[in-house]
């Protein structure tokens, strides 16, 4: 360890230097092989820990319990007691209907959470580039499958970038797009069912976000946005066309 600025590498990688110092250190990296190697190593380690550390996702029942517990208490209502047997029956029916769709629901819950996390993050994507010719190759070696991305020329969509994600313990790609004032996340996973054919986008209207899911070319895809369904549907169709086998 010879370079006197070597101690700044962690602060630089963590974005903890003042903007001017951050810029100055970036300039220093161009001429210092020791610090460059240290920065690269710490960036790789950060990335590995970020992926591995995000091991657990809150189960849907925890969200349900939170909504139930956090709802404001209203005045005592005797009729609620009278409705109890009906509520039990309703709960049983909901549980029955939910069981076959559990894995799909877990995925939808997972991708919505992932989209929310991305929106709140100061570094929403790992590869920042507006060209799919750059973003798509970035996933090679990071995912056990490949996928196609649509050509955006002449459309209202703009690619922001992408990152590797894990949802329900499945590796996938998250691609982030700008559509007007809204951001759109597209999630792509390898389909668990290899015999799965092509399915048109199906939209979930029960959520605050617009969430769509479809399959194409052995890929399972999800779209999450706070924009409207018409905007989202166009991008979903473009993706489906690009991945039609």
């Amino acid at each position, binding site marked *: *360890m010879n370079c006197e600025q070597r101690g700044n590498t*962690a602060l630089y990688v*963590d*974005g*903890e230097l003042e903007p001017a110092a951050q810029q100055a250190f970036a300039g220093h990296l161009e001429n210092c*092989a*020791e*610090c460059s*190697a*240290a920065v*690269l*190593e*710490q960036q*790789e*380690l*950060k990335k*590995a*820990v*970020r*992926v*591995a*550390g*995000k*091991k*657990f*996702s*809150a*189960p849907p*029942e*925890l*969200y349900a*319990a*939170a*909504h139930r*517990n*956090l*709802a*404001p*208490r209203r005045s005592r209502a005797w009729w609620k007691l009278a409705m109890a047997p009906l509520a039990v029956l309703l709960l049983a029916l909901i549980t029955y209907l939910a069981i076959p769709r559990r894995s799909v629901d877990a995925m939808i819950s997972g991708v919505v*959470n992932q989209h*929310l*996390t991305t929106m*709140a*993050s*100061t*570094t929403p994507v790992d590869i920042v580039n507006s060209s799919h010719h750059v973003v798509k190759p970035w996933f090679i070696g990071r995912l056990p499958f490949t996928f196609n991305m649509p050509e955006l020329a002449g459309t209202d969509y703009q690619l922001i970038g992408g990152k590797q994600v*894990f949802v329900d313990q499945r590796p996938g790609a998250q691609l982030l797009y700008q559509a007007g004032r809204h951001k759109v996340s597209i999630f792509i996973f390898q389909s668990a069912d290899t015999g799965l054919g092509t399915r048109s986008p199906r939209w979930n209207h029960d959520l605050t976000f617009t969430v769509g899911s479809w399959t194409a070319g052995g890929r399972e895809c999800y779209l999450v946005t706070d924009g409207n369904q018409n905007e989202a549907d166009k991008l979903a169709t473009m993706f489906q066309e690009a991945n039609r086998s």
Partner: protein
Amino acid sequence: MAAAVIPRGNVSGLEHKEFEKLAVPLMDGLYNFACWMCGDPDEARDLVQETLLKSLRAFGSFRQGTNFRAWMFRILRNTFLTSRTGLERRNTQQEDEENFAEAAVSTETPEIALIRRADTELVQAAIAQLAPPWQEVVLLAEVEEMKYKEIAEALDVPIGTVMSRLARARQQIKVYIMTALSEKKVVGIKR
């Protein structure tokens, strides 16, 4: 840990809504952090629920403009530390950070290549072997992408302690990965 029943205090309907809007997006992060600390999904679920109820009750005293996320993680951690599992864990941990001097970090490119070869399972094992003070700081820094100041608020420690713990945690993770890959003891190596 049994599910707690905590009085909700005098929180208005509007505050309920505001709290829910702020707290629900943090659920995944809180649950992930709780799972790492408890090592048990059921206990983690109870811990998150108890944290939500406690923080809702105290939401009236939460000062606007301060960091809500750090405040929530602080309540979660304090709740855990006062639980039976938390007390056991705290009593067994050995904190010798004062004696820690950052080891010389080699900048050889083969190490970078080795880190790239480490798969998720191996890195998770490396995180799991960290003592609680280093595990929690590295999870908040890397997974929750918190700044040093935010971590210091969440853990109620000085920023200098955050930095030294983070450096030590990263060094331990790196050494664990290097050792595992060089000895080929761990199965989870990418082909």
